[in-house]
């Protein structure tokens, strides 16, 4: 792997699991192994014992994916309203804005990956479960249209429970909006690369997340339509253990490759190279790449 700086990132990763002294040790959410935070972070929040991939927020994801300092955020001026005056939506938005490192459930922008310029979208599950409301749909659609306009590949990291219930039918329509924009990319033959991360379900999975030319997923991520609890009401015990995981979807032909986190950036770089993306180097070129 030609890329440097992947494992040696200095920036602090936050949201350590609760219940253990902050900054020193943490516990694997899957196997409960006590892990030194330093090792855990060096291992990109993948458990050094069982290999479980813990969730990353958008900033952490961008940090470990793109070339250092290459990310330039866009459309961060869009903000959610409360069109239905839905119970507790304002409060939830307020809380999410204060606690999440992102201003909405998706962060979009431009970056380079191993020198290849891309339009990037990264969902943030820590912002209202990554749910897709009007802003999320709009940012994704704009990012895709930007890819078409500037003939740049678009990479979308998904992590979302689905449509944002608090915006009612308006949020359902974001499925149509993002899929239509993906259709424009399809017609223009601009590569759309999807990386499914834990969890990607509901209206997000049943729209643009399923429309990539290439669809990758992290291991053991929850990936599915209705969520295991909703879906298994009458199927009961017959459900396979890996129901609605990356492995299940891969087995059924819905995912191209399951890629461990440490190999993702290199895999993306290979794909970008395959599609003939031209490498650029300076930050200024990233922002104005055409």
């Amino acid at each position, binding site marked *: 792997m030609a890329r440097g700086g992947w494992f040696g990132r200095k920036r602090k990763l936050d949201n350590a699991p609760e219940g253990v002294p902050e900054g020193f040790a943490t516990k694997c959410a899957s196997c409960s192994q006590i892990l030194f935070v330093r090792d855990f972070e060096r291992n990109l929040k993948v458990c050094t014992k069982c290999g479980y991939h813990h969730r990353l927020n958008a900033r952490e994801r961008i940090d470990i994916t793109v070339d250092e300092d290459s990310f330039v955020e866009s459309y961060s001026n869009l903000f959610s309203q409360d069109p239905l005056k839905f119970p507790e939506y304002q409060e939830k938005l307020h809380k999410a804005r204060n606690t999440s490192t992102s201003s909405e459930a998706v962060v979009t922008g431009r970056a380079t990956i191993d020198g290849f310029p891309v339009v990037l979208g990264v969902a943030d599950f820590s912002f209202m479960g990554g749910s897709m409301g009007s802003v999320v749909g709009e940012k994704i659609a704009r990012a895709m249209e930007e890819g078409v306009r500037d003939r740049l590949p678009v990479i979308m990291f998904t992590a979302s429970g689905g449509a944002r219930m608090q915006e009612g039918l308006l949020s359902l329509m974001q499925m149509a909006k993002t899929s239509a924009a993906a259709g424009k990319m399809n017609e223009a033959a601009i590569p759309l690369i999807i990386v499914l991360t834990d969890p990607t379900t509901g209206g997000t999975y049943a729209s643009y997340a399923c429309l990539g030319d290439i669809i990758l997923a992290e291991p053991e991520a929850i990936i599915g*339509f209705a969520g295991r609890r909703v*879906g298994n009401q009458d199927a009961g015990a017959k459900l396979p253990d890996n129901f609605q995981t990356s492995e299940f979807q891969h087995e059924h032909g819905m995912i191209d490759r399951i890629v461990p986190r440490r190999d993702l950036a290199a895999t993306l770089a290979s794909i970008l190279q395959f599609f003939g993306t031209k490498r650029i180097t300076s930050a200024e070129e990233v922002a104005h790449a055409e």
Partner: protein
Amino acid sequence: MLNNTFEFEKPIEELESLIVSLKSPEGRAKAEVEGIALDEAIGPLEAQLQLVKEQIYNNLSAWEKTQMARHKDRPYSLDYIRIIFDEFLELSGDRLASDDEAVVGGLAVLNGESVVVIGQQKGRDLRERQKRNFGSARAEGFRKALRLAKMAEKFGLPLISFVDTAGAAADLRAEEHGVSEAIARNLRDFALLKSPIVVTVIGEGGSGGALGMAVGDRVLMLEHSIYSVISPEGCAAILWRDKAKADEAAQALNLTAEGAKKNGLIDQILPEPLGGAHKDVVAMAATLKAAITEYVTELKNIEPEKLVEQRYKRIRGFGQYGEN
């Protein structure tokens, strides 16, 4: 629900049964004995009945409309298809794996012109309900719809879609066969289909399952149909951990035709016969046919490229957000 009557319809039922009993031979005999002029009494009662009906049906809450949309006598896609079109030749299969009977479709003739029709179909009795998976399509159903839509495009024919589902199937088979992918593909390909598409939500417009057949140039809703991102029960369970609060959730979700229209997500609300579409399916079908005919006529005159451009713009405009 007893005898197909909802709680909110009780006052109507009471008045109706009073009028019926007065009009019965026993009622007439009794009136004669007591010297009451029955016809003079019945007239005002019938006028009152009409008023009560209007009062109730014109002021249904979101939850009452949800119940109407799910009414077991509510006309389904095939009921309308059989009345609206001069002819209908049903076609089957997704040409990939199987035939999903939760979706129907085929060739149809509308006022002498060829069109392609697709619809989501619930079952009337238990056997049919099972056969049609309660109107919840799996991947095969959405792929069947897309296959027919592509045929419409290939032969330059308008596509007419009827939406009526509680939601897409969420069982093991649906997941194994890629129901998400099938819905997603429909959203993408319907958005850019080079044929006019007229969609009507006739009953339940349940989430992604409904949307998977509801992307079009014109989207209509029947007066008492609903269209929602999540069922009121599901929403109540998430919000208040109490399915019984579906009433409040329906209100909060604003899942009525008025709600959809207000947010610019549909074009027109079609009035239903007093008491709901099931009270007079022929009249409802006539209203529906007139609207579909009008839109198809209008859309057929638009160049396919321009049509797709307008549709894309329409879809792109969905949503409400602020911009600093």
